[in-house]
């Protein structure tokens, strides 16, 4: 493996990482502040992708599609909070899991009714559909660079929002001690709704941004949700900084394992056996990472101060 290939694979890992971050950030906030396990978070991601693809197809503008996807994520999240999640705050986690699992099924069927069972089309805008030579000899898809940029921008925005604003202060306080915040007269219902909408907007944004790279289809949310759960457990439940660190670690570990293992093992084993072992090890790399992190830091990398 050359150094150039290594740089390219690192970019790939980074891109997967920021994509995961946009989903995991909302998930971890909702869990950290409201103490709700929301399995339907992946459905917001799917909704963002479908709405974004439809708006892009109708208007011809990918930028409008991105805005519409994020808006759809926020709006649906808000409705969801009002109609269902609000009733679950006082329930235990098993009830929340059952209810939000039912929501996944409902959303998947609703999308099938509205858009049909076949995947739908969403392409990168022409401006971003080519490749860029990031280093000599490495043509890199321009769209993936845009995903990295959007993901980092979302991370910076969240960092600013949570670290520098009054709303962020309340969110941080809510993560640490919900009852005290409530006792101080903060409208906790409004705060929860806002956080839910924020998480939904990020998930919707991630959905549209994923569209040109991944299949826009029923069930796309569940696939990525599993990795997002790994991310927030590695990063520490409820911590946005943890979600960022976890996303990048998971993205890089996954990509490096798939890229480097075959090369390393081919030096040690016959090719067929090396490919087989590399495939099997590569499949579990993310979960190995999680096991190692948890054995060293059982609360995750950035535990909230409970």
């Amino acid at each position, binding site marked *: 493996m050359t150094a150039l*290939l290594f740089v*390219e*694979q690192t970019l*790939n890992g980074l*891109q*997967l990482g920021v994509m995961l971050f946009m989903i995991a950030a909302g998930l971890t906030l909702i869990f950290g502040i409201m103490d709700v*396990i929301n*399995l339907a978070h992946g459905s917001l991601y799917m909704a963002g992708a479908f709405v974004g693809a439809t708006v892009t197809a109708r208007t011809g503008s990918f930028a409008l599609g991105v805005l519409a996807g994020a808006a759809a994520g926020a709006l649906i999240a808000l409705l969801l909070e009002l109609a269902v999640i609000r009733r679950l705050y006082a329930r235990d*986690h*098993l009830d929340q*899991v059952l209810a939000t*699992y039912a929501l*996944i*099924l409902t959303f*998947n*069927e609703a999308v*099938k009714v509205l858009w049909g*069972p*076949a*995947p*739908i*089309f969403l*392409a*990168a805008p022409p401006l971003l*559909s*080519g*490749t860029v030579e990031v280093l000599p000899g490495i*043509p890199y*898809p321009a769209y*993936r660079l845009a995903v990295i940029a959007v993901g980092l921008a979302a991370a910076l925005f969240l960092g600013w929002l949570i670290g520098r604003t009054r709303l962020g202060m309340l969110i941080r306080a809510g993560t640490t001690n919900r009852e005290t915040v409530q006792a101080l007269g903060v409208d906790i219902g409004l705060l929860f709704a806002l956080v839910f909408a924020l998480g939904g907007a990020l998930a919707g944004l991630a959905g549209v941004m994923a569209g*040109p*790279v*991944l*299949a826009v*289809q*029923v*069930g796309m949310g*569940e*696939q*990525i*949700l*599993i990795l997002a*759960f*790994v991310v927030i*457990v590695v990063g520490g*439940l409820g911590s946005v900084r943890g979600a960022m660190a976890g996303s990048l670690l998971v993205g890089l570990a*996954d*990509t490096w394992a*798939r*890229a480097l293992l*075959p090369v390393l093992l081919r030096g040690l084993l016959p*090719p*067929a056996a090396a*490919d*087989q072992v590399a*495939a*099997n090890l*590569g*499949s579990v790399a993310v979960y190995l990472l999680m096991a190692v992190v948890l054995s060293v830091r*059982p609360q995750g990398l950035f535990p909230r101060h409970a």
Partner: protein
Amino acid sequence: MTIRRRRLLGTAAALPLAPAAIGGLAAPAIAQRAPIRIGMITTLSGPGAALGNDIRDGFALVVKNAGGRLGGYPVEVVVADDGLRPENGRAIAERMVRRERIQVLTGIVFSNVMLAVAPVVLGPATYISANAGPSQLAGEGCNPNYFNVAWQNDNLHEAVGQYVTQQGVKRAFILAPNYPAGRDALTGFKRFYKGEVVSETYTRLDQLDYAAELAAIRAANPEAVYIFLPGGLGINFIKQYAAAGLRGRIPLYGPGFSFDQDVLPAVGDDALGCFNSSQWALDLPFPANRQFVDTFEAEYKRLPSLYASQGYDAALLIGSALAATRGEVSDRAAFNAALKRAAFQSVRGSFRFGNNNHPIQTIYMREVVKDAQGRMVNRTIGTAFENHQDAYAAQCRLPA
């Protein structure tokens, strides 16, 4: 905290298991005698839903075109969704065969569901597969009550192996998910490919991003890339292959599954110029195919896929057997013998069964192009095999 996390992960791990949903759809039947009931177990929910949807619609089209009849006899098609879960498929099969006494079944999309259902249905009923063709039912484990009207699982992969060898490809990069059907696919490809395999890469079945593999492909610079990535996996890969600037530089090959009408509209231009194999194509000139494509498009306002063609052929085959047995299905041996004659006009031209009740047929090569209306379609560019039989037939002890 720890308990909470454990529960969280437990629920996340349970996610890919889609739910069961059972629906019934009765074809209209106007008859003096009770209609013959045909059980259709297929996948109508979850990511594989488009496949089952097309099989069901292709089948229903034949019934509808004939006024609710097959082979001149009124039929009632009982449809149920297996949700891509073998245990669901098995439960539905038990209900249909034991409680409802249905004796003709079809529709299963996925081989794992097929293998779970086979022990329940084969014997009390005859099963006509319109898609799944696992090797277990083609070789030693072949069964007089099991017919496959589509293909044996390896066939389309073998065809590409044969075709790229004919094209003089010396270095191929091959890739599939790390699960039994993925390994079978690449084994099928290699059975007829005579050049060098520069890398045989297995990816995760739930993998979304192929950037690492695409970088490896660029570095290896092969003369051809062969992928078997069903459903959404294929869409992800083809989009990313084009975005990485590899489309047009290294020819991309696959079985028809990754390049048919269920997938092409979602991939768009990124699939142009890709090559794939199939036993059927939109543009095959046979009259039966023209009628199929025209009536399908008129009825459903979309182009049919190979899955739809298989559902359509399954209905034609069952109709031919019903006509021969005068609508009698309870004499199992007579009905099976009538099926084996395959006395129907297949949409793919010549069709007959081998000794193991699997097709002996032509496999075509197709290229993804845009048609006059700007739609993404396949154009037939040649044949990989004529009268091709699967590799397991010799191990089957059924007579020809």
